């Protein structure tokens, strides 16, 4: 086991620590599912 620093990305979850908040999102994963099902160029 090794210590790789603060958690930033794990299983598609992005963890962004800011001053006194933490923002959790899956924007990379979201983009990948849109791309996987071929809907990235649709707008409505």
């Amino acid at each position: 086991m090794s210590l790789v620093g603060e958690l930033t990305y794990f299983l598609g979850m992005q963890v962004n620590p800011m001053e006194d908040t933490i923002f959790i999102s899956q924007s990379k994963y979201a983009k990948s599912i849109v791309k996987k099902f071929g809907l990235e160029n649709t707008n409505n």
Partner: protein
Amino acid sequence: MTHIKLTKDDSGVNFDQTLYMSMIGSLFYHTTSKHDITFVPGVCSRYQAEPKTSHLTQVKRIIKYINRTYDYGILYSHVTGSMLVGYCNVDWDGSTDDRKSTSGGCLFLGNNLISWFSKKQNCVSLSTTKIEYIAAGSSCTQLLWIKQMLKEYNVE
């Protein structure tokens, strides 16, 4: 989707079940950071046994929504109160096929969203009061569990 009632659509055109289930699975995983789509994949997942193109249209709409809102997430702040608050609600007669209602709820610790759920109720009900009680019951279960857990962690 709010005004669209999905049904089994027996006369509809069949769609590849494996692909449909894969789409639903991907959407469910995305709900871990995007609670605004907790309900809709649940509705679409009811038709996994025999997906039709009419169901696929709705799943595609959810993915298109994700395409526009991919950067949404949950913000947790350190500076916040520690009051545990729960909300719950229910849709009346939400499922056209079996007439069961769906409970939904969310729990906040201070300003932070810590738990949420959306689940179709197990029984058919004849009164709106009863379905509200069922939803309140599920919410309280969750609330008490978190309350106990906070106590164990010594969070006031």
